[in-house]
């Protein structure tokens, strides 16, 4: 049919058609505000962050520690009841160097979002966060990093209580 049809429908417009008033349109701004409950597990996680501790949750059946914590193990569908303090160090699993904002505006100083595998959690278990205090060109996958926390009195129990993660200069253990 594709080759038999000559006239496919659909009328393209340009941004300028709107700006120059060539088409009629309705503009509306929807406003929605929310107050989300943290829930049980993330509530513990946020309380931990306020104290400067990253919490995971352990499944004894599957022998794994997940982060962020949750109330049920997806693998075995048993409850996770034990919260485990993890380190505030980790390894860069992957990263990006991002030059645009969420609404696709250019930014001069790029952001460096990363998935960071947290020390103490099972291998491959990371969280989304950002890197800082580092030349973007020097970031590599596998790089060791450490959390930079807000001062204790400024923490509010949020993921942003960790400002960013910076390269870890590790002291060689004997």
């Amino acid at each position: 049919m594709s080759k038999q049809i000559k006239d496919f429908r659909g009328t393209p417009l340009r941004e300028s058609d709107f700006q120059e008033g060539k088409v009629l349109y309705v503009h509306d701004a929807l406003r929605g505000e929310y107050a989300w409950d943290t829930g049980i597990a993330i509530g513990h996680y946020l309380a931990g962050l306020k104290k400067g501790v990253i919490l995971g949750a352990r499944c004894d059946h599957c022998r794994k520690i997940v982060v962020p914590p949750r109330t049920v193990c997806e693998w075995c569908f048993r409850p996770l009841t034990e919260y485990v303090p993890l380190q505030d160090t980790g390894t860069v699993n992957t990263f990006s160097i991002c030059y645009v904002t969420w609404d696709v505006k250019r930014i001069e100083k790029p952001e460096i979002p990363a998935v960071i595998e947290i020390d103490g959690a099972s291998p491959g278990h990371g969280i989304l966060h950002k890197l800082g205090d580092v030349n973007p060109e020097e970031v590599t996958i596998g790089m060791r990093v450490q959390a930079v926390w807000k001062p204790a009195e400024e923490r509010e129990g949020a993921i942003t209580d960790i400002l960013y993660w910076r390269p870890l200069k590790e002291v060689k253990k004997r």
Partner: protein
Amino acid sequence: MGMRKVAVVGAGMTKFVRRAQETGKELSWEAVRMALDSCEMTIDDIEAVCMGTAPDAFDGLHMKAEYLSDGAGAWLKPYMRSYVGGGTGIFAPIQGWYHVASGLFDTCLVVCEEKMSSFYPHAQAAFLTIFDHTTERALKPNLLWIFALEMNRYMHTYGVRKEDIALVSVLHKRNAADHPCALLGEPDITVEDVLNSEVLAWPVQRYDVSPVSDGAVAIVLAAEHVARRITDKPVWIEGVGWCLDTAYWTNRDLCYPRYVEVAARMAYEMAGITEPRKQIDIAEPYDPFDYKALHHLEGLQLADRGQAVQLYIDGTAARTGNMPVCPSGGLLGVGNPIAAAGLMKIAELFWQLRGEAGARQVPGNPRRGVAQAWGDLMQVGTVVVMGR
């Protein structure tokens, strides 16, 4: 399993454009009318309607399927909307398939519509709400992040080079130059053009990404006894599969889409496919970004892990190659009106397997094809195998 054979007997689509003057209803109606005309059916011959359309946030309109229902031909019919993010365009035909395979209906219309342009200033912002509101959204993420993170992980794990991944964008955009509905067909694009395009979120550059678009696609499904009365050339839905991986996307390795593999194995088993690389003639993997086509070819078992790019390097993926990939031009070339883009791949296989794809026709009378889509927070895989 006691299921009836189901065929695609008609297909239609609108142009994919950056911004359409038509509303979503009007686009849906144009696609449906073309699909019905193509098989000389009327809306009275349709027993049920399935609608696929992505987030209500694009339109700022809750219960979007109900709003679209008149254009979709759903008046006083059993009507149902499905939505699994970007996977919707391949899931909606699966939903239509089980409406008919189950014996409940003899005919079913599947419509996928997307109008992304209404969202201001850019549809990307509508995607913000897919992130976890407590643990992720506070970091002000943008949608490009997850693709950039996944692409970087993929390149790092298998040592795939950016200049090779760019071949995907080049092939698909060149293929799209032959598609009458394409938004970004570029017959002369080169690897250098891709590598020199604006960096958005390294390693993702402008030409690695498909464009946001408006558009609609519709197909008509029929049970075997009806299909044989409608057309001499039914294209059968031979296998379907779908699967969802964990929503904790930072807890699994982004280098390989397990969920696509599970969905593909489900579809292949139903279709009796034991050696997909030999038995699949055309592949339409989901390609919102160029590396995603590679990722998905590997999940579909059409290439070894980290090796899909070889299909582009050695010409296997070309329209005249042994296993053409995205002869339509894919999302990178035709455009990416989310749900409609997935169903466009089903329509493409329909036209290709009937020998009706015109300038895009794959030579050698292809017998079987696979289409796949992906979505949600990088964890859903939807797969359909079609054959004649």
